[in-house]
Every structure is written in C-alpha cells, then in structure tokens.
C-alpha cells in the first residue's frame, strides 16, 4: 500500500483538530471530532479471471457538538474546510432544538493514552508491504482451488482477497488527543455445488490483522467447499424439541444478539430482555462472556474507544451471572455506571466480545448428542430484544446416536434468549478471533425445531 501511513495519522489528527476549532467558533461549548482514513484494496476472481479490482482511500469525519447540555452530531465525507464549516454551523443551530439532557457531554476526565498500536499488535506490517499483484494471484488461486477440490463443485460466486489500513484520530475540546492505526487482511470464497437439479452455495471467509496470521488461502477454499457439500441432499426435518448444536460461526451470530441486549443503549430504553437483571443468573454456569478491548492483535482492539476512554477487559457474564452492561459515557450515566470503553460510532459497540471456550471439538459435541440438530447456517435477523424471542431459519445436520445422519434444511429453530443461555450445556474449545464478536461451538439442551 502507500508508504505514507504515518502521514495518514497526522492528516487525520490535523483534520480532527481543525473541525474542533470550527465547531467552537460556530458556538459549540464542547465537542469531539473523529477522523478515519481507510485505504482499501479488493481483488475478486471468478472463472479463471480477475473480475473485480477496487482500490480507494476514503476519509470520514464525525463531530459531536454540545451546546450546554444539548447534543447534535454530524458525519461527512466532505472534509474540505468550507464543507466542515458549513456543516458545523448547521449542526450547532440544530442543537438548539434538542432537549437539555443532564447526561449529555464529554467524558469527565481526560485519560492519558498509555498503550500504543505497537503494544497491541493492531498493525501488521505485511499488509502495507504486500504487492497488489500477489493478492490478485491469490484470489485466482483460491478460485482454482475451490473448482478443483471436488467434481460436484460446478460454479462459483467468486473468491475475494482484500485488505485495509485504517488510520484514526480523536480530539476533544477538553484536551484529549489520540491516534490509532489498524490493519486487516481477509480471504473468502463462495463455491456452488450441484445437488440433483438444485444448487448449494457455500460461503466462507476469514479475517485477521495481517497476512501472516490469516487462515491460509487453501484452507479458506476447502472450508468453503466443505460448506457447499455438507448440505447436499438436505431434507426437511420433523417438528420436534431436541438439543441444538451451534457451529462456531453461527454461535458467534447468537452472541452478537446477546451483545445487543447487553448494550446500555438498549437496556436504558427498556429494549432489552436483560434490563433490570444485574446480579441475576441469566445463563448456565458454562456461560462466561468477556469484552476485551486490549486483546493483542484482536480485530476490535484499540488503545481507547470513540470517546477517548481507555479500553479494558470487562467480564460481562460470569458463570451465568450478569455482572455489568457494556456502556459508553452517555448510556453509562443513564444507568449509573462508568463507561466500559465501548463507545463506537455514536453509540455502544463491541471491542472483542467472546464466549469463554470450554474443551474439545465440534465433533466431540456431536458424539455426545444422542439425538439433535447441528446448525451450520442460519438465515433471518430480526431479533426482538425487548421480548428476547429468538427464531431463525436454519440448515445443518440431523444427529442420532452421536453420529451425523443426514443434511437438513428449510426448518426453523426457536427459543427465548433466557431459555437459550440457561440451556447451554456444553461449550467446545474451538474459539477463534476472526471477528469482533466470536464464540466457540456450543450446545443448547432443548429448542423447538419446526419442519414438517
């Protein structure tokens, strides 16, 4: 990539400082400004051909302006001085129509940033160093590998290789200044298998901070092929109540929903089934959930959050007991707790949220299940956080006597989050930090499977 990444951090900080100055002269009594500069490269291959090539640098600015206890925000991709000036004036004038809110405002203290990117391994030098041609060749190689892996693979939606270098700066009118940089590298594939007259697509991708730590190209290709082939001949299962095993990536999506319910922004407005439950048992003893903003090399790792609060390790659920919600400064004040360093994008976001792993493999979970369903993929997304109802379309494998028997699809799995978390009776050891919310495979003692 470019050789000017230090310059990007400087450029980001200079832009943030100039936005602060403009906000102050427009009448803001307090403000913070965040600038991100993202250099992104993507190559996609399909049919032995390079089919997509994208390279761009995108800059974005967000400003939170306070007029006393009234808050207004802006975000823009127009970072010209005139553009920012016109926008901060608009925003400060809109703030007059916002209600006074005792909890609104910058963090009370400005913490010194003690850790840097170097300590946290958020920058992998091999991202900037790697030549574009090599990445293009690798996309073609993944595409070849999925096509050659099995005669039943007859098509592909394309194989992708991409990377990013993000430079990020935050400044506020109380004197906070921070810069941060992170890199990512990712590979994905989407082979299509023939299944009689039907088709089955298998999606698989992996991401890491750099190329050296990323799952190898061939492994990504074979994983994707395995997913396409695993569901061949799938049929609809009967409607029943049985144990359900969530494969790692599906388990992570469940944890994503749990994170939403843990977010102080949802809890404070009553839009969470975990509202008013601090200190209570809400999951089985196997459920310990942690958010670690300082995880070395984690995809959600940074020295400070979007408000400048130092990030940290927070145990959210310990052996099933709810210990805290995850908060930024504002939503924390609303709930009477301190920020947990989870400010992100104007609200509350995960750093590295994970379910603490147990022992053994996914195969071990299957072998220990007399009758049940292994879920490999879900579709649908509308979780009702207020009621805590969980319901998804699913595909996977029917298990009997601890053995995978046949592939199943076109069914739903349903429960409530309280029942689901309380029902987790086995957790595997296959955790991997390839996203910002991750989980090992786990089993829920009983869910409703709705099929024929």
């Amino acid at each position, binding site marked *: 990539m470019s050789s000017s990444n230090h310059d990007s951090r400087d450029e980001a900080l200079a832009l943030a400082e100039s936005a602060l100055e403009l906000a102050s002269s427009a009448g803001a009594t307090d403000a913070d400004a965040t600038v991100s500069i993202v250099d992104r490269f993507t190559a996609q291959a399909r049919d032995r*051909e*390079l*089919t*997509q*090539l*994208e*390279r*761009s*640098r*995108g*800059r974005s600015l967000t400003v939170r302006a306070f007029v006393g206890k009234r*808050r*207004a*925000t*802006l*975000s*823009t*991709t*127009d970072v010209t001085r005139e*553009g920012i000036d016109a*926008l901060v004036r608009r*925003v400060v004038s*809109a703030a*007059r*129509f*916002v*209600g006074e*809110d005792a909890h609104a405002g910058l963090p009370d203290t400005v913490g010194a940033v003690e850790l840097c990117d170097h300590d946290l391994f958020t920058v992998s030098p091999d991202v900037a160093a790697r030549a574009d041609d090599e990445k293009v060749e690798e996309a073609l190689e993944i595409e070849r590998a999925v096509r050659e892996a099995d005669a039943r693979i007859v*098509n592909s*939606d394309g194989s992708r290789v991409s990377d990013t270098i993000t430079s990020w700066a935050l400044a506020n009118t109380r004197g906070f200044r921070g810069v941060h940089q992170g890199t990512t590298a990712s590979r994905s594939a989407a082979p*299509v298998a023939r*299944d009689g007259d*039907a*088709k*089955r*697509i298998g999606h698989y991708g992996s991401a890491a901070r750099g190329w050296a730590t990323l799952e190898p190209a061939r492994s990504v290709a074979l994983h994707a092929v395995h997913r396409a082939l695993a569901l061949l001949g799938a049929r*609809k299962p009967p*409607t029943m*109540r049985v144990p359900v095993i969530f494969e790692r990536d599906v388990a992570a999506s469940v944890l994503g929903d749990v994170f939403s319910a843990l977010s102080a922004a949802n809890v404070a407005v*009553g*839009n969470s089934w975990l509202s008013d439950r601090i200190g209570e048992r809400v999951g089985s003893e196997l459920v310990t959930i942690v958010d670690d903003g300082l995880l070395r090399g984690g995809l959600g790792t940074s020295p400070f959050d979007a408000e400048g609060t130092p990030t940290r390790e927070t145990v959210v659920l310990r052996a099933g007991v709810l210990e805290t919600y995850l908060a930024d400064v504002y939503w924390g004040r609303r709930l009477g707790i301190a920020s947990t360093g989870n400010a992100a994008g104007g609200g509350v976001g995960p750093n590295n949220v994970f379910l603490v792993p147990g022992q053994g493999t996914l195969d071990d979970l299957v072998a220990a299940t007399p009758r049940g369903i292994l879920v490999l993929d879900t*579709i*649908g997304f*509308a979780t*009702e956080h*207020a*009621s805590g*109802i969980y*319901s*998804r*379309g699913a595909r996977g494998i029917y298990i009997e006597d601890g053995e995978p028997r046949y592939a199943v699809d*076109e*069914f*739903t*799995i*349903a429960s*409530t989050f309280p029942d689901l978390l309380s029902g987790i009776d086995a957790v595997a050891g296959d955790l991997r930090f390839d996203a910002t919310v991750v989980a090992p495979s786990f089993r829920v003692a009983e869910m*409703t499977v*709705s099929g*024929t």
Partner: protein
Amino acid sequence: MTTALDPALLARVLSRALRRGGDFADVYFENRLTQTFRLQDGRIHEASTNVVRGAGVRVVVGQRAGYAFSDELDESALLRAAEAASLIARDGAADAAAIELASAAAPALYEPHGDEPAASERYVELLSRADVAARAFDPRVAAVNAFVTDELQYVQVASSDGRVVTDRRPLVTLGVQVVAKDGARRENGYLGDGGRTDIGVFTVKTPESIARESARIATTKLGARDAPAGEMPVVIGAGGGGVLLHEAVGHGLEADFNRKGTSLYSGRVGERVASDLVTIFDDGDLPGERGSVAIDDEGTPGQHKVLVENGILQGYMQDRLNARLMGVASTGSGRRQSYRVMPQPRMCNTYMPDGASTPEEIIGSVERGLYAASFAGGQVEISKGDFVFMVAEGYLIENGKITAPVRGATLIGNGPDAMTKVTMVGNDGRLANRSYTCGKGGQYVPVGVGVPTLKLASCTVGGTAAS
C-alpha cells in the same frame, strides 16, 4: 454546495478511465444531505446531519470491473481514481478517443422538495405529536422512540457512451418504536412511513396515525401467545406481506445471480415458477414511492418490469454490466448505497396486482392456520431459494376467523415451492405503508413492497409452541 460536476471534466475523467481499454466507463457523483431528529423519553434526544459526497469511477471489460472512488472532487483526484479503475483492463488495447457528453435531465418522478431541509421546529413538532399519541394510546406504553429523517440526494452519472444525466431525489421517513410493558413482559412495535417527497407528506400520513399503529402492535403482542410450530396454511396480509415477493422471488431474479448461474431461477425465463394466480411487477417509476428512481445509479430511467406473469417467469432485473453480458437492455435496476461502492442489480417497488377474492373469503377458507399481517423483514439464500420472514404482527386463524395474536413467528419456505402454493389472491392490493430497506452484499437501499391478501396453502411456521 456542489450539486454536479462539470461535464467537460467528466469527459476527461472518462477518457483517462478507458486509456487501457474497456467496454465502457462511468462516473457516479453524489452529494446527499440527511437531517435527522430523534425523540426519546418525551424530548428531542439528538439532532444529526449526515453528508455523503464524492465520486466513483468504474471501468467494465466483459465480466470484469475496476472501481475507485474519491471524496476529493478536483481534477487530479478524479484522474487518480480513473487511473486506478483502468487497471482492470491491464491487458486491453489502448483507446485514447476523446469523449463528448450530451446532458439530459431525469424524468420528473418525485413530489416537490426544497433545496434545504425544513425549519427544525417542524421536525420537533412531528416527533412530539407522535410521542403524545403513542402514550395516550394505552397506559402500558412504557417507552416511545421516534425519529424523522429528511434527505436530499443530488446524483449525476456520466457514461463513456456519451450521456450525462442528473437526478435530485428526496426521501423522508418518520418512524415510531413503542415498547409496551405489562409486569415483566415487554413487547415492541414499530412502524415507519414516508416516501420520495418532503415532510409535508406527514400532514396526510400523520405522526398520530403512525404512532397509534405502532402502539397498537406493541400492546397487542403483550396479550399474544407463543407462535405455533409446523406446517399449516398461512394467509399473508395486504401491503407489508409484500416482503414475501421480495424474498421468495425478487432477489432470485436479480441479473447478477442469473448471469453467473448461481440463482435457482437461472435459465428459466418462459418456465412456470409460480401458480397461475401469481403476477409480480417491479416498478422504478411509481411517483413518490420509497423504492422509485427517476434514473437508476447508472443513469438508466426507472421503469415498469413484469417479472412473473400468470406464473411464468418473464425476465430479470438488469443493470448495465449484466445486461450487456446477457444481450439485453438494462431495466433501470442498477442501484448502489453510495459513491464508495459499485452498483448492483436491485429491486425498486416489488408488488402483485389484484386477484379476484375478498380478504374475508381468503381468511374464511382456512380452518386452522396463521394470519401474517405484516413482516419485520426477511432473508433469502439465492442458490437453493430458501427464504425466511419474521412476522411483525401475526394471529391464529381458527375456523375461518382471525383469533388470538401470536408472537415470535418466523415463516420458512422455498421460493418456487411457496409460490406454487399460492391458491387465492385478494382484491385489496396496496403498497406497504412501511419503510423497508433492502440489504445485499453489504449495500442498503430503500425499497417498496406490496401485495394483496394471499393464501399459501401450506408453509412452515417456526414458533416455539408445540402443536
């Protein structure tokens, strides 16, 4: 404020983009200002302003596309983007022909909207009225969260075939989320409405009506029992039930999946894919509707498309790249979330024209089943065609009558299989009065859906209650 770039500059950028060769190149410029006010706890919680401004350059060679964008709009930055996009044609023949552009305006399609957002007082008033109406609806209303957004997007598309077209698209939405509480039980209701117009539309679609409807859904669910599980007849409600068409059929008819052969509908034009009661349109040219585009994001006019007629597949939704490879014309379906990404074939307003039955006849024909009044959303898997919808408001049907409300119902089915089970179509078709947004490949665009009351003879309902 920059609302368009100089056509002479765009011509130079296009020439640079094609300097290594290519079938065509285009430049997409946008400048979009969105003003949002949010209400919470009975007061305005936050005001926010969002600007998306920049340009993207694309070079297409066969199935290959190179893309680069810039948030800087000066000539050197745009030429840099053109240079980066041109690399896709690295082994192509050089072609330095000068490009001349003829300007055209998009057809008039939207209701009027000023150049600036309305006075802030007006948004505040709309939200306060929604808050009061929701709270007055029922004492069990525990929280009201409401927002209003007012967006104006200037779009300009210049193409190496010599056209430069501009569009000016308004879009307003008023959404009200209500949390109702009864003891320890909490339930949500949500309704959003609006269209491609200005906030004057909320004198007709009043904040009170939106808020009461949202409060009605939330409080009704407080008394709901768990949804049943298993296969049963399902009646899809008029309007919001149109998510069925969007997921079960619509996505599978987008040209990219069909050109690549990854959709289950690939190569099936002229074949039966639904019962003969099923006709499906996708229209980009409905005045003022949320999913309408006077021109799409490639400069092609939005248009009326017949996707399925009396059960027979008629054609796909095309953007320029895929239309060219499939030897047909673009259908004005090339849409994108912003200048930072390439366009994809997408839906606009997808709906079904009226059939012959009354809604009462349809519900009366079901002995035991589910009535899905509206959906919170859905998703489809393209290659095999399995889809799900999350029911936002659902009821049991018992002995031909709508009875108890149910919560947590998800429907799952397979596209062509479900559509051949459409055995009755109502005479009460309409577009949903809901603000749907469709996601594909990480890109989100506003869409419309609509349907008359429909009967699916059988569908799997995924609830938690054993039957």
